């Protein structure tokens, strides 16, 4: 395990272009998970709670949307 750990540490240390890339990856992941996911892309059905509530909601949506199409 220690050898594998050292393998990764030495690999990261010896990176040249990679350091900039890692900075970009980390910034990108931060924006994606800490900003976009939290503030802009919450799980729409998440607040409904239990699976049965979600089933009920989606069933209602699917049935009502067909009625909308007839209006």
């Amino acid at each position, binding site marked *: 395990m220690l050898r594998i750990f050292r393998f990764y540490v030495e690999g990261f240390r010896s990176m040249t272009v990679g350091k900039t890339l890692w900075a970009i990856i980390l910034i990108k992941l931060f924006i994606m998970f800490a900003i976009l996911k939290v503030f*802009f892309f919450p799980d729409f059905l998440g607040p409904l709670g239990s699976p049965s509530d979600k089933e009920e909601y989606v069933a209602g949506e699917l049935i009502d949307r067909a009625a909308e*199409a007839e209006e």
Partner: protein
Amino acid sequence: MIENIDISLIGWSRAQFALTAIYHWLFVPLTLGLGVVQAVMETIYYKTGDEFWKKTAQFWMKLFGINFAIGVATGLILEFEFGANWSNYSWFVGDIFGAPLAVEGIVAFFMEATFIAVMFFGWGKVSRGFHLASTWLTIVGATISAFWILVANAWMQHPVGMAFNPDTVRNEMVSFWEVALSPVAVNKFFHAVLSGWIVGAAFVVGVASWFLLRKREAKFALASIKIGAAFGLLACLLSAWTGDGSAHQVAQRQPMKLAAMEGLYEGRKGAGLVGIGVLASGKQYNDGSDPFIFKVEIPKMLSFFAERNLNAYVPGITNLLEGGYTQRDGTPALSAQEKISRGKLAIQALARYRTAESDSLRQQARAALDENFRYFGYGYIRHPADLIPPVGLTFYAFRVMVLLGGFLLLLFAATCYLSYRGRFAAKRWLQWVCLASIFLAIIAGQAGWVVAEVGRQPWAIQDILPTSAAISKLPASSVRLTFFIFLTLFTVLLIAELKIMLSAIKKGPEIG
């Protein structure tokens, strides 16, 4: 009182998804294609022990790494969008969509992530054989990863291996293998991966040509061009083959998409394939006017591609909407209006099933639902004309893909011939063409996806769920806002990638 879905919400949600997918697909094909080229080069190093090939492989590996790092996780944004913008769809597809994505995450991604570390950090620290194996396993992992994503996409184009459960309002997988090995999935996988190989080959040949144009690293550039062009030629030939398979699949499963790809309104026997053409604007499916201003057609070829028979009947858009023509199985085709009626029966049966107060009523409703479920999505369609995808975009995107594919095949053939004959270095005009062809290969791949995805509108899942029913009831303004956030974020990331990539290219392979 039902709050109607804002039509612009569908448009913005689709635009946002398309933007994310297009951006993601800038990186994926280069990963798939460049990965194979660098692995071939490392294999030559392993066989010969020649340091030149090690340096050559390392140079392309560095560019592979830059592309991989910028592109990694951009596909996850699509999953955010499924949960937020397409929640009805996400619930409705259930484990069918989740299973391939889970396999992708557990097996392929971890395989890719494990071996990529050895590939980049392992030079001189592990044996040459182990390093080579890691390089190949990285690209095999990336390709398997693509397979599972394409399985999920193929299921949306041709839903199989599932049963709808009206209690959970979800589709449940009844046959994993039917989903994973559906003919649409298998063909889509090969066609999409091969398009990635073409992008990778064009990238190698183009960048290497740039070195020749700058009169730098001639040995490295010519060696890379030989491998890149041969690989590109092979990929183009195989891609033409899988493209033929793809057209046949579309004819069998998505005839409306095929009709839109060809601008074919009135079906006929011995239908010709439009080589080039200009569509007339304002064409209505039932106005009887000529859909083309001009066209050049290859006689009977569409019938052959669609049915493997030069004289076979191929239905057009009008026929598909009006029905009545004889299908392959000898039965008369339903009209769109009849399908819409059957779809409404299915949805009404779902409503009755969920409110039934006795088992017998529930069983009756279930039987009606099962009988009509294959038309479920038609119950959301207001007018038959809403079943027509954007014909212009589908038609032109298809021609862009095919013509660029044909051009790249000729380019790789010529480059291959001249480079193996030792005459490529003197052809500066061809080197410029090769450089420009990097972008043409990317455009061809994107155009292919436009055909696949725009051509299947209005469906999120073919025949079962249209986008209007798949979408979450969100304010259109919030989706519009995130569209522009993504546009900004993606542009910044793309500029960052291009800067780092160009800097690495300019530095060169540093071969003595």
